[in-house]
C-alpha cells in the first residue's frame, strides 16, 4: 500500500506536520477545514502544469457516463473539463459532462473527505470516531466477520446496495453481487443476496411476468422516425443529463423529425419544458389514465386486433388460459364486464387522475391515430405502492396500438440504448442462494428469521433462518439517506443487539457513514486506474479508459486492496487475488476487453492516452422485438406462452397464494389499484398532499450532495403550487415544515406553477441532517417515505406519500 500513498505521506501512514503544510499549500488553502479525521480546503483553479491532462470519468448512478479531463499541477487536480475530442458527427459526438461532473474538483477536495480508517467511539449513528491504523481496522473487522459467520452462518452477512461508483469495472460498487466485496464474500462461504434495485424495483420484477424479461424499448433517437411521442413519468433531460446521452439524443431527434412530444408528469419537468404538451397527473394514477384511454381505443375500434391476436394472450376472453373464469380478460376489465362491474370510462379515469375527461379522450385518439407512436416510461411511475401494476399498464398503450417491433414504434418501457460490452471483474459464485429484495434489509435486521417467501418475498428458500448481523456498505448512502423512513431505520440501526457490525467504505462523511462501526476511506475514482463502460446513449457506443490523475488522498485505499487485506486474514488471499495485484487485474481485464473490441490499442497505456473509444451504433436505430412481431411462433418471448401475457397466469397464482397485508393486491391483469397513501386514501383528511421526490440536477441521488457549487446553483427546495402555498400562507423562500406520522422536514419552498395542485415534490437525495428530535433540516425526503414494501417486488414505493405542510 505504501506505494499508493501520496508522496507526502511518511512510511507507516503517519502524516508529519511538514507534510500537512505541504498538502495545504498545494491545495491552496491556509487552514485545513474539518480537522483530524477528514477535510481540507478546495484546490485552486489553474491550467494543467506542463499541459498535463488526464482522461478520467464520472462514475455515479445517473444512468449516463461522462468523459472528464483532469488538469493536474503538483499532484493536485486544478481544473476539470470534459470531452474535447470533436463534435461534428452525431453518433461520434462529445460525451459532455453535466454540471455535476464539471464540479468534480470541489467533490474530490470536499471538506468532508475522509482521511484515515476510523472506529466508532460514541453510540451508533452519533458520528463520533477515533482514528485507527489499517492493520487494526482490518484485524478487527475480520475478527468480527469470523464471529458472525461462526455464530450465525454466512446468511447473516449482507452487502448493502451502493451505487456511488457503479460506473467502474475494478472498483465497481453495483450490481452488488458483481463487486470486489461480493468476490471476497464468495471466497468466505457467501452472503445473503439481494434482488431488485431502488431505481427499478417494481418495473424490473413485474415485466418478466408479462414479457418474459425486463422489457426493452426503441431508442430515444427513434423519435426522429415517429409521429407522436408520449412520455409517462420519464424525464431524460433531468435524469440522463450527459451531453453524450439521452438529453442530447432527445434534442437531436426533435430536430431531425417532426414528432409531437407529450409529457405526462405531476411536474412540469425540464423535459416537459422542451416538449409540445404537458399533461399533469396525480402521482400513482398512470394505470387509471391508461385504462381510461384503453376504453376509448376499444370502444372506438382503434386497437390493433391483428397484433393482439398474433402476439398477445389475455386481451379478450378467447385467449384466456384454461381454467380461468370468464370475465377476466383485459377487454372485460376495461369495459366493466369483469368482477368489479366498473367500466373504465374517461370520466372514471378523470376523477382519479385529475386529468380532464376531454383531454383523456383526445390523447387516446391521438395515440390511436399516430402510426407509428413512440410510448415510453421512466422509473418514476413505477416507484409507487402500485408500481408493478402501473409499469405493466403503461406498456398496454403500445400493445393495444400494435406499436411493438416497429421503426418509430415502441413497447411502452423505458427507452433502449446502445451498448458496447467490456470485460467484467470475475466475482465468483455465491454458495448462499437465499435472497431478499433490495428494500427488505431493515426487516431482515429486525426479524430476519421470521421472513418467508410468501409473505416477504424471500427467494431461494421458503424462509430466512437468521437475521442480518454483519453488513458491508461500499460507495452507498442507502443505510439512512436513500432508504425509507429515516427515523425508523435509525431506531433499528441504533439497537446494537440487532445488527452487530456495520462497515462503511466511502470517500465522505455521509449520513450513512455516520452509522458505521468501522469507517474506511476508499480511493476516489480520480485516484485509480479503471475501465469505464458506457452510459445510456441512443447512437453512441463507447468505453472510457480512466487513468489515475492524482495519488490517493491521505490513507485512502482501493476497495480491491481493502478486500485483499480481509482475505489475507482469512487465509484466502490466493483465491481472492489469483496472484494478481489490482494493476495486474486491470491489465487482464483490458486484454479481455480487447477480445470483445478488437480495434482497441495493444496496451492500456495507449488506451489511457486516448481516453475513450467511440463507435457509431446503427442508424436508423435497431428495432427491438421486430422478429417477435413478424413471427411470434418462430421467435417467442420467454413467457410460458411465448407471447405477451396481458393476463399472466403466474401472477394469478401469486395473487391467490401470497400473504399480503390488507389492501394490497396482485392481479393477473395490469389493472389500476388504489393504494395506501394514494389519491383515494381517507388519510388525506389528515395529510391532504401527495409528496413525490424528483431527481434533481444538484445531485445524482445523494452523490454530489456535499458540493458547495451545486448547492448554490441548484438549491434544495420543496416544490409547491401557488394554490396550495396561498392556502398555507407560504411565499417563495419561506421555510416550510413538511410532516406526516413518520417524520418532519424543514426546507425552503419554491412556489411554482410547475407542479400540479395537491402535489408536492421534495427532490430526493439531499443529505439527512437530523436535530436532537430527529427532525431533518437537510431536506431529505426519506424522512417522510414509508418502509412498507410494494406487493409483488417488495420494493421501495418512495413516491407514495401523504403529508401536510405548514409555514414555520
Amino acid at each position, binding site marked *: 500500500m505504501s506505494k499508493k500513498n501520496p508522496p507526502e505521506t511518511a512510511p507507516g501512514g503517519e502524516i508529519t506536520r511538514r507534510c500537512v503544510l505541504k498538502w495545504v499549500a498545494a491545495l491552496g488553502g491556509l487552514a485545513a477545514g474539518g480537522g483530524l479525521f477528514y477535510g481540507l480546503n478546495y484546490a*485552486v*483553479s489553474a*491550467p494543467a502544469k506542463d499541459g498535463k491532462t488526464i482522461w478520467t470519468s464520472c462514475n455515479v448512478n445517473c444512468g449516463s457516463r461522462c468523459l472528464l479531463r483532469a488538469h493536474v499541477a503538483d499532484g493536485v487536480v486544478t*481544473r*476539470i*473539463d*470534459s470531452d*474535447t475530442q470533436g*463534435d461534428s458527427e452525431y453518433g461520434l459526438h462529445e460525451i*459532455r*459532462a*453535466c*454540471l*455535476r461532473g*464539471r*464540479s468534480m*474538483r*470541489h467533490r474530490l477536495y470536499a471538506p468532508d473527505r475522509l482521511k484515515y480508517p476510523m472506529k466508532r467511539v460514541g453510540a451508533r449513528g452519533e458520528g463520533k470516531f477515533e482514528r485507527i491504523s489499517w492493520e487494526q481496522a482490518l484485524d478487527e473487522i475480520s475478527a468480527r466477520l469470523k464471529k458472525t459467520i461462526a455464530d450465525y452462518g454466512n446468511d447473516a452477512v449482507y452487502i448493502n446496495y451502493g451505487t456511488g461508483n457503479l460506473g467502474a469495472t475494478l472498483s465497481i460498487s453495483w450490481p452488488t453481487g458483481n463487486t470486489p466485496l461480493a468476490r471476497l464474500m464468495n471466497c468466505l462461504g457467501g452472503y445473503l443476496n439481494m434482488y431488485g434495485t431502488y431505481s427499478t424495483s417494481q418495473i424490473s420484477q413485474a415485466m418478466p411476468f408479462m414479457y418474459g424479461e425486463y422489457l426493452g424499448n426503441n431508442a430515444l433517437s427513434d423519435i426522429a422516425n415517429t409521429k407522436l411521442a408520449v412520455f409517462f413519468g420519464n424525464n431524460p*433531460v*433531468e435524469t440522463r*443529463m*450527459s*451531453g453524450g446521452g439521452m*438529453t*442530447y439524443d432527445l*434534442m437531436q431527434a426533435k430536430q431531425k423529425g417532426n414528432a409531437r412530444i407529450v409529457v405526462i408528469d405531476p411536474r*412540469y419537468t*425540464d*423535459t416537459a*419544458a*422542451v416538449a*409540445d404538451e*404537458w399533461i*399533469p397527473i396525480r402521482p400513482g394514477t398512470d394505470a387509471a389514465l391508461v385504462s381510461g384511454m384503453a376504453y376509448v381505443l376499444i370502444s372506438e375500434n382503434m386497437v390493433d386486433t391483428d397484433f393482439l391476436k398474433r402476439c398477445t394472450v389475455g386481451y379478450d376472453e378467447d385467449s384466456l388460459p384454461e381454467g380461468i373464469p370468464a370475465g377476466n380478460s383485459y377487454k372485460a376489465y376495461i369495459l366493466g364486464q369483469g368482477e368489479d362491474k366498473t367500466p373504465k370510462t374517461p370520466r372514471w379515469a*378523470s*376523477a382519479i387522475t*385529475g*386529468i*380532464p*375527461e376531454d383531454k383523456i379522450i383526445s390523447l387516446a385518439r391521438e395515440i390511436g391515430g399516430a402510426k407509428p407512436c413512440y410510448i415510453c416510461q421512466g422509473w418514476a411511475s413505477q416507484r409507487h405502492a402500485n408500481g408493478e401494476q402501473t409499469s405493466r399498464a403503461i406498456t398496454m398503450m403500445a400493445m393495444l396500438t400494435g406499436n411493438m417491433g416497429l421503426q418509430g414504434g415502441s413497447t411502452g418501457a423505458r427507452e433502449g440504448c446502445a451498448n458496447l460490452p467490456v470485460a467484467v471483474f470475475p466475482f465468483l459464485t455465491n454458495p448462499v442462494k437465499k435472497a431478499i429484495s433490495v428494500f427488505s434489509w431493515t426487516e431482515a435486521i429486525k426479524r430476519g428469521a421470521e421472513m418467508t417467501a410468501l409473505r416477504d418475498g424471500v427467494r431461494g428458500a421458503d424462509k430466512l433462518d437468521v437475521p442480518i448481523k454483519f453488513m458491508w456498505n461500499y460507495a452507498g448512502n442507502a443505510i439512512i439517506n436513500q432508504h425509507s423512513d429515516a427515523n425508523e431505520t435509525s431506531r433499528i440501526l441504533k439497537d446494537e443487539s440487532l445488527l452487530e457490525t456495520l462497515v462503511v467504505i466511502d470517500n465522505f462523511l455521509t449520513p450513512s457513514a455516520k452509522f458505521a462501526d468501522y469507517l474506511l476511506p476508499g480511493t476516489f475514482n480520480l485516484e485509480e486506474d479503471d475501465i469505464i463502460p458506457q452510459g445510456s446513449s441512443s447512437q453512441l457506443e463507447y468505453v472510457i479508459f480512466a487513468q489515475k490523475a492524482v495519488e490517493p488522498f491521505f490513507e485512502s485505499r482501493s476497495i480491491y486492496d481493502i478486500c485483499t487485506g480481509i482475505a489475507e486474514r482469512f487465509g484466502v488471499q490466493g483465491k481472492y487475488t489469483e496472484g494478481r495485484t489490482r494493476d495486474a487485474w486491470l491489465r487482464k481485464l483490458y486484454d479481455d476487453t480487447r477480445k470483445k473490441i478488437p480495434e482497441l490499442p495493444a496496451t492500456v497505456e495507449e488506451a489511457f492516452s486516448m481516453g475513450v473509444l467511440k463507435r457509431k451504433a446503427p442508424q436508423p436505430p435497431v428495432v427491438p422485438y421486430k422478429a417477435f412481431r413478424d413471427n411470434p411462433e418462430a421467435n417467442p418471448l420467454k413467457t410460458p406462452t411465448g407471447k405477451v401475457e396481458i393476463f399472466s397466469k403466474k401472477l394469478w397464482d401469486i395473487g391467490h397464494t401470497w400473504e399480503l397485508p390488507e389492501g394490497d393486491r396482485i392481479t393477473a391483469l395490469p389493472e389500476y389499484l388504489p393504494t395506501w397513501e394514494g389519491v383515494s386514501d381517507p388519510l388525506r383528511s389528515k395529510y391532504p398532499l401527495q409528496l413525490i421526490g424528483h431527481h434533481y*440536477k444538484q445531485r445524482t441521488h445523494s452523490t454530489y450532495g456535499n458540493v*458547495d*457549487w*451545486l448547492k*448554490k*446553483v*441548484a*438549491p434544495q427546495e420543496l416544490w409547491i*403550487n*401557488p*394554490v396550495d402555498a396561498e392556502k398555507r400562507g407560504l411565499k*417563495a*423562500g419561506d421555510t416550510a415544515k413538511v410532516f406526516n406520522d413518520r417524520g418532519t422536514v424543514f426546507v425552503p419552498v*419554491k412556489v*411554482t*406553477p*410547475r407542479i*400540479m*395542485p395537491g402535489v408536492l415534490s421534495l427532490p430526493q437525495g439531499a443529505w439527512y441532517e437530523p436535530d436532537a428530535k430527529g427532525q431533518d433540516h437537510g431536506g431529505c425526503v426519506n424522512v417522510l417515505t414509508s418502509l412498507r414494501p410494494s406487493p409483488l417486488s417488495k420494493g421501495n414505493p418512495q413516491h407514495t406519500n401523504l403529508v401536510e405542510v405548514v409555514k414555520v
Partner: protein
Amino acid sequence: MYKRPAFHIDTSRCTGCKTCMIACMDKHDLPEGVLWRRVTEYVGGEWAARPDGTYTQNIFGYYLSIGCNHCQNPICVRSCPTTAMHKGKDGIVSVDHTKCVGCRYCEWGCPYSAPQYDAKLGKMTKCDFCRDYQQEGTAPACVAACPNRALDYGEYEELAAKYGEVNVIAPLPDPGITQPNLVITLGKNAKPAGSKAGKVSNPEEV
C-alpha cells in the same frame, strides 16, 4: 481577434442544466456569490379549477443562460467613473483591476447583471470571453461544456448570419439600451421582451 465577440443561445435547446455556470466557476474559480454566467428560469401560466375537481392549465417555462454580451454600447463602460471598465480592441469588455475601485456603478447599470462584485477583492469581475482559451483556439468554457449544444460563440456577423438577428426575449431588456452582441434562437415558449406573461422564478439563483 473579434470585431464583435458574441454569444448565441438556443432557448429551444437550453434545459436549464447550469453546466455552463459550473464550467465557468471551475475555470475561473469564482468565489461564492460571483456568477459570470447566470441561468434564469422564466415561468408563467395559470391553473383553472373545474367543477369536477380537475384542472386545466397553460403553464409554460424556459431557461436562458446569459454571460456578458460584450455590448456595442456597453452601459457598464459608460457607468464606470475610473475607466477601469473598458472595451478592448478585441471587443471584449473587461475590468482593469489597477483602476477599479469597486464602486459597483457598472453593476447597477448593466441590465444583464454581467459585472459581478468580488467582495474579497473589493473589485468588479466579469466574463472575459475566456480570452486565454480563445488564444489557444478553444471555445469558451461555457460553450464547450453545454450538453445540449444550446450555446455558441464567435463573430457577431457570422452568428447572426447562421442563426438570425433575434436578440429580444423576456426577461431580457430592450436591446436598444446596450446593443448586446447576443443572438437568440427562440423556442416555442419564448415571450417577447417586456412581456408580463411570466416571471423569473429563481431570482435568488441569479
